[in-house]
Every structure is written in C-alpha cells, then in structure tokens.
C-alpha cells in the first residue's frame, strides 16, 4: 500500500540516479550571497583583503529567522559587493579567490556524545552551521524545529523528490543511509518528537530497501512508501500522505502537529553535528538538453552557473533558460554569473526542446486544471478573474491557497500561463496588504501628532 494525496500530475521524470556522484572542482572564484535563506539577510563579517578558511563563518544576522553563511573554499576575499543572485536582483555577496588549499576552519567541532542527546545543543549547532531547508524553500531549519517544540507530535521527513530530473535526495539515501538515519534522529531529538515518518516515493524502492536494512526503528524512524506523483513532496501533501492530517488553509504543518524536513537537510544536520561541517556543498543535478548530461555533481556553494556548465562538459546546444531547482517549481536564473546556493537542488540548462509555450493561448475550458489541483482549487475560474482584475472573486476562489506547484499549468493542453497568473496575483495581494498597512500606520501617526 502506498500513501498519497488527491490530484497531482505525472510529468516525464527524466531521473538518472544511476549516474554516480561526480565532484566538481571548485571555481577559481566563489561568490557567496548573503541571502541564502528566508528571513533577515546576513551582514558580511569579512572585508576585502581578509584571508578566510573553508567553512569559516563570513556572514550572519542575530535575527531569529536567519541563517549564517560560510566560506565554501579557503582563500582571499577579493570583493564584498552586490553581485547577481540566482533568484534575481543584485545581492550583497562575498567573493573569495580560491587558493585550492581547502584549509579547514576548526570553529565547529563535532558535538560530544552528550551534546548529541541535548536538543538545545543540536538546535544551536543547526543554526551555527547555517542549515536551511535544502529542498528549495531555504527556511532556517533551527527556527522551524524550535518553534514546533511542544506543538509537534509527528516529524515528517520528505524523501519524495517528486520534481523531475533531481536525484540528490535519492543518491544521499543510497550513498549515506546510516548517516542520513542518524541525521533524522537528531532532528527528532531536537524537536522532542517520539517518532519520525520518512515518506519516500516508490520509484526509489532500492533506497527504501537499503534504509530498511539499517533498522530505522532503532532511530525512531518509520519509512512510509508513497505513490509516485507530483507534487508528493509538497509540504502539505507530504503531511496528508503520511499522517492523513490536512493542513488548514493559510496554516502551517505545525498547526496539525507536524514538522516537515527534507532529506538533504537531515544529511546536512548530520554533517553539522557529527562532523562539524557547515553547509558549504550539496549534490546539484545538472541536466537539460543544452548540456551533455545528466550529472549528479557535488558542488560547492557559490559556484557560478556558467562555470558549473563548463565543468559538466560545456554546452552542446545554446541554452535558452537556466532553471534552478526542478522544472515544476524551479525559477529561472537571469545570469551565468549567478552562483549556486544552499537551496539549489538542480541546475537545468533548457533549450527550445523543453519549451512548449504557444503564442496567444486560448482556454478551452477542459477543466483538466481542476482535476489535478492538489489544493482542490479551480484554476480555470481563478485565471478568468485574474484576467478581469477581479480581486474579490479571486479571493473567493482562494487564490491565496495556491502554493504554485505548477500542476495546473503543466497539465493545461491550451498552455495557459496559470501558475504565472496566480503567483502574480498573490504578489499583488501582498502588495495591496502592505500598502493598506502603510496607509493605516501613516494615518495613526498623523492622529498621534494631533
């Protein structure tokens, strides 16, 4: 019996877990953005001309929702300036000239036996090592787990990896099964939860069997096989599939007593606690028809996208799009200079081959968007009201509950830009709320002056 949710789509998975992990030579110059998480941006701790060691903390912010960043190579800081960020815009970054010595920084020592049993020590280490949600959301994990203490009774580990192309989680399971289970145990201890449920899609049956052979129950973990369907790895879908609980609209998994942590994050936590290693590298799946691939490349944080493609054999065709993450939820990079960051699970160099857009698309009202929406929404009407600029009805059709999984737009035979519209609509709503709040504050300030 596999567990799952209602709705969803079956994209062409294009997975290649048989490709072994290849190590990408670090670039001569790494660019480490100060924003690699959701929350307060870090402030650089180093200046131009400083020498930094590999794993040294180079940026942090004391705000609770934040995560420090670390140098991924050793060498000299050549610039501290805004650089192109993979998510767009120019963001303050530390540029390090690689001396290819990889001189390690000893600031973070492996935790002692005792500390490995203490939630506080583990949470502090998670924060210090800059662990964020490495599935792509990049929410600071320490804050997430800490805020769930007392409220959460079930820890859900996300091993669905439902995005096409990506293999990082699967390969982590296959190559480091024991370390992974120990990492999950650490999250479980830190969150004060008795049991962790590890949801894995059955297209990774070999990984399920391997993990089961290491007796996950001794770590307080149960492996839950799941149906292969996108977006199985969505937070709410994962909670529904594993525990049967439904997160309320606008709510968080913590609202129904669950915390969701991704596979790669658990492995990063293992490395932080057992090995004293901060988040400075990860497996990045490099694919798409513009490169000769795919590659499962162990890549340092801060590797520019152009350099990464060169290291993976260069372009065989002219790329038209660079997609960061999976193709369903991934966003497009705007520059070859932008670096990979902690949340980059994949870099896909797409050409016209993958692009199936049409000009002037016409909705045929087939309703295929409705059958696949995992949130039970009605994209066809949401889109209609979006085109009319009808905010009231957009809200009535719950556009704010859309989590932009892209299933509707993927499945649309007419190629309507559905997800694009909803993302824009959500931004408009946020903007409207912010403007209203600012206006109310200004009014209150004026009245106070009187």
């Amino acid at each position, binding site marked *: 019996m596999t567990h799952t949710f209602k709705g969803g*789509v079956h994209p062409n998975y294009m997975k290649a877990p048989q490709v072994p992990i290849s190590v990408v030579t670090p670039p001569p110059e790494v660019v480490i953005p100060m924003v690699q998480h959701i929350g307060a941006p870090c402030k650089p701790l180093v200046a131009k001309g400083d020498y930094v060691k590999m794993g040294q903390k180079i940026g942090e912010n004391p705000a609770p929702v934040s995560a420090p960043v670390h140098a991924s190579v050793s060498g000299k800081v050549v610039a501290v300036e805004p650089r192109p960020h993979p998510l767009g815009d120019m963001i303050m970054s530390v540029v390090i000239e690689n001396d290819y010595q990889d001189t390690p920084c000893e600031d973070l020592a492996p935790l002692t036996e005792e500390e490995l049993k203490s939630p506080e020590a583990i949470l502090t280490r998670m924060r210090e090592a800059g662990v964020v949600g490495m599935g792509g959301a990049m929410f600071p994990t320490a804050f997430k787990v800490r805020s769930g203490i007392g409220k959460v009774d079930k820890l859900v580990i996300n091993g669905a990896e439902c995005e096409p192309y990506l293999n990082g989680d699967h390969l982590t399971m296959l190559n480091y099964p024991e370390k992974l289970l120990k990492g999950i145990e650490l999250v479980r201890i830190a969150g004060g939860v008795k049991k962790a449920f590890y949801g894995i899609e059955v297209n990774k049956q070999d990984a399920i069997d391997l993990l089961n052979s290491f007796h996950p129950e001794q770590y307080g973990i149960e492996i839950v096989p799941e149906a292969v369907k996108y977006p199985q790895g969505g937070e709410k879908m994962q909670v529904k599939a594993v525990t049967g609980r439904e997160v309320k609209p606008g709510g968080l998994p913590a609202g129904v007593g669950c915390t969701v942590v991704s596979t790669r994050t658990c492995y990063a936590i293992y490395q932080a606690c057992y090995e004293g290693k901060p988040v400075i590298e990860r497996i990045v799946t490099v694919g798409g028809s513009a490169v000769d691939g795919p590659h499962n490349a162990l890549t340092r944080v801060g590797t520019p996208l*152009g350099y990464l493609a060169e290291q993976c054999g260069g372009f065989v065709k002219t790329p038209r799009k660079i997609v960061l993450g999976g193709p369903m939820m991934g966003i497009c990079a705007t520059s*070859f200079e932008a670096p990979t960051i902690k949340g980059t699970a994949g870099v896909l160099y797409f050409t016209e081959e993958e692009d199936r857009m049409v000009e002037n698309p016409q909705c045929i009202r087939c309703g295929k968007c409705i059958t696949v929406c995992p949130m*039970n929404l009605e994209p*066809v009407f949401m889109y209609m009201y979006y085109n009319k600029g009808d905010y009231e009805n957009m809200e009535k059709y719950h556009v704010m509950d859309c989590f932009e999984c892209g299933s509707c*737009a993927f499945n649309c035979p*007419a190629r309507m830009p559905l997800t694009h519209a909803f*993302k824009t609509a959500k931004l408009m709503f946020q903007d409207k709320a912010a403007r209203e709040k600012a206006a109310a504050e200004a009014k209150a300030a004026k009245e106070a002056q009187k």
Partner: protein
Amino acid sequence: MSEKKERIILDVAYQPQVRTTQDTKRLMLDVMIALLPAIIVGVLQFGLYPLVLLLTGVCSAVFWEWGYRRLFKKDASIGDLSAALTGLLLGLTMPPTAPWWLPVIGTFFGIVVVKQLYGGIGKNFLNPALAGRAFLFSSYATIMATWSIPNALSGTVDGTTMATPLAGMYGDGLPAYFTAKSMFMGYLPGCIGEISAFALLLGGAYLIWRKVISWRIPVSFIGTVGLLTLIFGKSGYSNGQWMLYNLFSGSLMLGAIFMATDYATSPVTLNGQLVYGAGCGLLTVLIRYFGGFPEGTTYAILIMNLCTWALDKAFHRHQFGVSKADIAFKKAEKLAAKEAAKYE
C-alpha cells in the same frame, strides 16, 4: 569564452518550465480517432455516400472558421482542429441520404453564429455541432427525418425508407427484426454516426484511456437514462429489455460520449459534471416519454449546456484542508450573524 556566453539572452518565466505533451490539437485529433469506429459502421450500413456528407461538413466548418477569422482580422485558429471536429460531428448527425449542401448550412450556424460570434474556441455556450443540427432540424424537418434502410436490414424491409426503432417503441410497437443485440451492433436506421452503440462505446473507452474526457458525464448521462427506463418500463416489454432498447436506440450514445462532453459547454467542476450528466439523462427520458419528438438527446444536451455556468457556480468546491466540520461551523456562523442582524 565567458564573454561569448554573456551574449546569450536568457528567457525568464515563472514555473512550471515543462509542459505536458497533450495539447488542444492532439485532444481534437483524439476525438476524431475515437469517432473512426462509428464512421466505419456508418459506411458499412449506408454505403460510401455518407463520407461525402462528412467531408462537406469538415471542409465547410473549416472554411467558415477560416473565413470569419480572416474577415475580422483575428488570429487564424483552424490549426487547432476544433472546427474540423465540429464539422465531423455535425456530419455524423445527418441522415445518410441528406443532400450534400445540408452540412454546409449547419456548420455556418454552428461555427459562425454559435462559436465565433461569442469569441471562438472555449467561449461558446452551446455545442456548435448540436446547435447546427437543431437549426437544420427546425429548417429542414422532412429531410432530417428521412431514414434509409441499413444494409443489414435490406432483405428484411421493403421500400427505400423506414421508421427508426424509437418511433416504433413510442408508437405502435417495435418490429420484431430489432433485437437488443442487433441494435447494439448498429443494425438499425438512423443518423450516420449514431447507429452502433458498440462502436461509440469503443470510441468512448479510447477517449477515457487517453484522458481526453473523464467518465463522469457519459456515465451519469447513460446511467440516468438506464435507471429511469428500467424503473418506468412500458407494458409489452420486460423492464430490462425496455432499458436496453432505450440505451441502444436514438443518438443517446453519440450524445453522451461525444456531444455532452464538449469542453466549452459542459461544467468543469467534478460534481457539476455528474449533475450535468444526470440532467441530460433526465431531459432525454422526459422528451422521449412525453415530448413531441421521438428523440430528445439533442435538445436535452442543448438545454443542459445553458445550465453549465450555474452548475459550475453551484458546485464550487472547498479547498484542501477544509473539513466538513469547518463548513458546518462557517454556515452556523453566517446564520448567527443573520439572526443577530435581525434584532439590531
């Protein structure tokens, strides 16, 4: 090298970056493929002339669509095959001996008046093929009710024309040469494409397998007709027999599988589709039992087409994470607010 790369202009788009291979054109083509068995049965029973009608239907529908879009300087849209499908479907609802120009008039009404005047694909509120047929039915009543004898019955029945089984069933009795099995296979007079329930069900299975349509509308439509005719039988027939005769005669299968499932004119909400199908079934039975025409599928579907928008509104579903208790709570809250407003 890096200088050269920067000159590449990158596209930026919101997710998803990949799309399904199924597109509008492929969907329309699949429906045409699903109609092939019905066309083959039509040719086997009525000879090659029906192909002329189908051809004029398709060509004229494409011509009207092309001409209208060109005349009013709109984007060409015949490439999506939707107009061709409308022409084919209209052709299939013609009597096998209709004059060749009949579909041309029907497609003009269907494509120009019903579809294009409302904005083209996806925006019409009546099924263009059925609306065209209804137009012809009221304009050329005699031609549209002249049924030639199918080849399977050519030795059994004398003359050149004969009555349809429905006329017999609701008139002075069904002739003995119609059995449930022969009707299922299509050995009966009728429109080119409607005669064989077997061929149409085959096409329906293909459409469901290809995920072109869902099971909801055909099953609730045919199911409702089956259930009602099973309950309200007719003296002289066993209830089961009466139900089978009703299911296999007239244009029920063609309507339920190919006409009622037309995307633009059927509800998109899942429960709405079930109610829509049931409504079509109910109206079909009512028209057959009490109406002036022997066959009611066309008008039943057209009437339900008009209810589509209301059904979609009525069956707006609750989003993920909203339990039945939440809905009940919200209702109670609303009611309480109403009550409170009364006393203010």
